[in-house]
């Protein structure tokens, strides 16, 4: 009995912040409360005690946002290649196959058509669990195709970002995805389409500096880290303490950089409401 209890207790992965949780009981990284995992999950992966928003995968996000059974995945046949034969301590090829095996996904993005509270839309979600949701050619292509499909079908496009930025292993080609996705948004804009950008923890680098900050309406989950450069890089540059709450959703809201900070439980209805106002 003690054995079992001990085992259960060791399953708590406490100090590491915001890992996608496993095990029966969890310690919330924000309020340090013990939370029953199932309770947290049924609460949209938000701490019932302090509303800390855990990071969630793309399929869970889709489940939370769309009308049940309405999601039709698109562009799923795109697979990354290794155009530069990139190698750091590990080769990009090995990294990719390890990530693919772990996640069962080809890359860090999930996209498709759906209904959100009865409103048709294109939904595209970056997946943090795959190479930190970094944008290489596949992510850039899927985001672009989603925007193009929305432009063509005259429906809104919603992109939920959570990403470390452009993927280094595809170097210049990753960089070009920033131009590609932004250019697609210019066309959507010219056609009068609606783009809702949802920023989640964390959204940084080349993703922020392209489509993520180009939303007609930009929503962010509470306390999400959002920025161009990471806080560590900034600290190294200026060698000063960073202001309190720097680069968090609420800080950006105050600074005029985003439209709304939205609790996860409200996200679906907020999106539907904005779609209604836009008339798209």
């Amino acid at each position, binding site marked *: 009995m003690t054995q079992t209890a001990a085992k259960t207790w060791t399953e708590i992965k406490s100090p590491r912040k915001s890992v996608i949780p496993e095990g029966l009981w969890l310690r919330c990284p924000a309020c340090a409360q013990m939370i029953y995992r199932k309770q947290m999950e049924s609460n949209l992966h938000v701490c019932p005690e302090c509303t800390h928003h855990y990071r969630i995968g793309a399929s869970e996000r889709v489940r939370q946002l769309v009308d049940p059974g309405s999601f039709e995945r698109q562009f799923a*046949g*795109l697979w*990354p290649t290794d155009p530069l034969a990139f190698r750091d301590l590990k080769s990009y090829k090995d990294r990719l196959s390890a990530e693919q095996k772990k996640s069962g996904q080809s890359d860090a993005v999930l996209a498709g058509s759906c209904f959100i509270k009865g409103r048709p839309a294109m939904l595209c979600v970056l997946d943090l669990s795959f190479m930190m949701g970094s944008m290489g050619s596949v992510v850039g292509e899927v985001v672009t195709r989603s925007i193009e499909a929305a432009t063509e079908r005259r429906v809104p496009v919603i992109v939920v970002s959570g990403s470390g930025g452009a993927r280094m292993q595809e170097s*210049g080609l990753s960089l070009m*995805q920033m131009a590609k996705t932004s*250019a697609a948004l210019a066309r959507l804009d010219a056609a009068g389409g609606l783009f809702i950008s949802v920023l989640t923890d964390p959204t940084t680098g080349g993703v922020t500096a392209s489509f993520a900050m180009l939303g007609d309406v930009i929503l962010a989950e509470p306390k999400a880290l959002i920025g*161009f450069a990471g806080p560590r890089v900034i600290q190294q540059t200026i060698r000063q303490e960073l202001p309190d709450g720097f680069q968090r959703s609420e800080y950006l809201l105050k600074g005029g950089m985003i439209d709304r900070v939205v609790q996860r439980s409200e996200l679906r209805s907020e999106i539907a409401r904005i779609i209604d106002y836009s008339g798209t």
Partner: protein
Amino acid sequence: MSAFYQLEFERPVVTIERRIEQLERHLRQLTTVPAPAADAPAGSADAPVFTADLPAANGDMAVIDADDLPPTAEATKSLIDRLAAQRQALLTDLYRDLSPWNTVRVARHPNRPQSRDYIEMFCKDFCELHGDRRFGDDPAMVTGFGRIGSIKCLIVGHHKGRTTKEKIACHFGCAHPEGYRKALAKMKLAEKFGLPIVTLVDTPGAYPGVGAEERGQAEAIAVNLREMSRLKTPIVSIIIGEGGSGGALGIAVADRVGMLSNSWYSVISPEGCAAILWKQANEQTNTAAADSLKLTARDNLDLGIVDSVIPEPLGGAHRDPKAMARTLERWITDQLQELRTHRRELLPQRRYERFRALGAYVEAAVA
């Protein structure tokens, strides 16, 4: 020449250059001996000028022993010619297979010409325009009207600064959001007046700081990417030194993109990449990262990211800025002449297709 900043891999070249200098001085000495200048201070002709003259810092640069200097002017001349040929061969050799990491070093050479240098060299009647009308005027971004050849255009360029004071003001070429917003405001002006746009890219990256973040660095760059993609006027961009990530791309969404042969263009600097993927940035990991990132002009050409590699003078643009400016001017005017033949309304479509095609993936049929 003595103030010339020297790159480690160029040491053998610099040694030869010092010897040539020494021999040239010796030659002057030899040719003036038959008729010594009347106002020369006494004994100056006998002074051991050759070694004593060289700066102490160059002590490791083996100079020719005073006793071994050729006795006649003819012999000196022929030795100079031989050394000059040797220097040429060595430079050709070094620069032919410059490693990616050494390319980055050349691209950052402090004597490498910058945007303002090029503007001064090939631009007639430059009329600088300042300010983003929202926050301030970023000295790291230069914008203004100017004529290149006979073509009136708008010129936009990153500027790193030449003196220490200027470098600090320019944050070493790292622009702030106001810089990107200034660039876009002037580019829209160019569109309105039907002027083509020429951008000179030379930045380690957009500035990572508190103010830059607060004022929306990411948004400023993103908006430039979106708006440049639909400007109805020809855009030509050239990576003249460093093409560091989004900060570079923020003024490089163009119809034609060229790269000087010793510049680099990539999603991240080798040091940044090494620090993240190799967990530390040192000589060895920086070299490995530079290799992996495929950041040279040649690599970017192969990947289709740039359209042309513009050759630099032997030994890099910093050895002959005037020649570089002439080559660059010719390339720009050629591109602008060619782009002038396209209908302005159709340019955004072509530009869209250019960037739309970039990316490497495989597409499998989904069951």
